[in-house]
């Protein structure tokens, strides 16, 4: 589903990703771990198409297509979804309006009928319940004044509504209490399907107890320096990254 080869990317003046390889097949869940500043969010941004991150070499293929050719909105319509590490506050744009515009653009692309306001409201309320999000948040401006945990839930809500093929979760578990963590995991697990895949960026083994990954990668110094099964996460929890990053450097 996703194939990344020798990816180099820069943000600002710095080269952040330096020859990264990664392959994710349909149905799989991959975890990406790694020290702060190692390039995890940069990878996520490359996949979502953030304009300020520039791919300088290598290939990024999604279902065989060159992703770098597509605008961010085209990628979203093709089924790529990034749950942001830092969701953006957008005063003056209602959460519900935003979510509806997002869903309808995807539905239109898939040749499905767009939902009207009533049907959409029903759907949004149902999904909000699933991720245990206060309905009142639907009527507020996007993320404006949301608590850290509420912002993360809002990301999961969007993911649940949009039902992407490839979901990338960038530290969606950071700053969440135990109950919220379960909710996020439930949202993710509900989406798991043979034709979908997930890339879960996290610092904590804890999340992986709920969302059991098929593969765990360690990203350090802009490259994947180690991949393994879920026991690798356990090992990292105990030993830290030092023993791996020394090799990378």
């Amino acid at each position, binding site marked *: 589903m996703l194939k990344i080869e020798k990816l180099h990317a820069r943000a600002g003046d710095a080269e952040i990703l330096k020859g990264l390889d990664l392959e994710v097949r349909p149905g799989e869940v991959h975890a990406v771990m790694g020290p702060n500043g190692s390039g995890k969010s940069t990878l996520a941004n490359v996949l*979502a*198409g*953030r*304009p*300020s991150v520039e791919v300088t070499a290598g290939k990024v293929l999604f279902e065989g297509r060159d992703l770098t050719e597509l*605008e*961010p*909105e085209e*990628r*979203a*319509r093709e089924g790529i*979804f*990034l749950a*942001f590490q830092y*969701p*953006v*506050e*957008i*005063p*003056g*744009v209602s959460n519900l309006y*935003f979510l509806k*515009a*997002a869903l309808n*653009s*995807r539905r239109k*692309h898939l040749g499905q009928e767009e939902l009207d306001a009533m049907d959409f409201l029903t759907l949004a309320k149902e999904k909000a319940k699933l991720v245990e999000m206060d309905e009142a948040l639907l009527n507020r*401006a*996007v993320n404006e004044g949301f608590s850290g945990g509420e912002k993360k839930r809002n990301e999961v809500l*969007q993911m649940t509504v*949009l039902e992407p093929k490839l979901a990338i979760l960038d530290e969606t578990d950071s700053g969440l209490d135990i109950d919220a963590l379960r909710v996020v995991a439930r949202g993710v697990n509900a989406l798991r399907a043979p034709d979908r895949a997930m890339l879960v960026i996290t610092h904590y083994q804890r999340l992986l107890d709920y969302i059991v990954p098929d593969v765990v990668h360690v990203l350090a110094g802009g490259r994947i320096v180690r991949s393994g099964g879920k026991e690798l996460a356990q090992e990292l929890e105990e030993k830290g990254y030092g023993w791996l990053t020394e090799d990378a450097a």
Partner: protein
Amino acid sequence: MSAAWLQELRREAAARFEELGYPTTRLEDWRYTNVGALAKTDWVSGEGRHDDVTPADLEHLTFPVFACSLFVFVNGHFAGDLSSPRALAGGVEVTTLSDALRDDPEGLRGRLGGLADSKRRAFAAQNLACFEDGAVVRIPAGVEIEQPIHLVFLSKPGAAPTDSHPRVLVVAESGSRATLIEDYVTFGEGEFFTNAVTEIFLEPNADLEHVRFQRESARGYHVSSLHVRQERDSRLAAHSISLGATLARNDVEATLVGEGAHADLYGLFLGTGRRLVDNHTTLDHAVPHTTSQELYKGILGGRSRGIFHGRVIVRPDAQKTDARQSSKNLLLSSGAEIDTKPQLEIHADDVKCSHGSTIGQLDEDALFYLRSRGIEEEQARALLTRAFASEVTDAIRSDVLRQRVQDQLLEILESE
């Protein structure tokens, strides 16, 4: 035969306009705004004929009629057949200026032309000399009406460049409360010039919301001035929504002459293409204990140019004045320009006056966030721009109108 005082007033105004001529950029107040092209055009006075305008056309241009009491003027002439004063209650009177001048000229004496200084203002003088007709609105003491009074000024250019000089006079008597909408739209193609003057008298404790919603077509020049005199404890909320015309100049002037008076001035102006939008406001705090709050937001794209000039005067006696001014601007392109200038003239010492201005661009992170959810870049930009405007539009009391303003803004932004 009209009253002698009126004939004299109009004759003087005509002479004064003759003398002053159209303003030039040598005048401080017109530095940025060149009306040379307007001055060179031979304008023909617009006709009131409107056989080709149907009520459906009108609804399409404005908004559903059920919401308001509707009074329509075509090129400044009253169009009774298109109007429907259905929701007027409590003795609220809306009459045409010509009827009012025929039936009770003395009632207008001292009021008509009483606030818009035609000695100094060329366009006000021209309007006073040339007005075809207009509206006179009286809200009786103690009467509160929910339904807005909706005045539509339709510019309908003919084969030759067409001008009109609509005029509005409002008296809100003590303790009354109402909303008045002046809606400027265009029907048909062609060059035109609208020169509108509104004078509003707020008696003690009156509360008036005034919305001037200008969305004339791109071939028009639009010059307007609003003059308000506020007595004790009166409240004004004046919204200037300026979305159309190739050149728009909007002056708003509120004079607070009674203690406890409060004025809120809101402005939203949009520049696209090569348009120019110039806003001049004056808040004159003439007595102690008056307050004002001003928020103007400019959205400028293409190679357009915006001007905000906000003058605040605090007279020597006007202790305890509280005046806050804010000008926030969004530049959508590198070719767009904004000039924003506060002018505080404070002659009292125990006052609070503040002003601030910002100029920014759309938030790139927000833009990416919306796009990453599948929203087209152009739509995302329009949404964020509308969101920028919402601080101003949210202050509009009427739901229908607020919605219309927001929708129209989005329509224009998406079509650019």
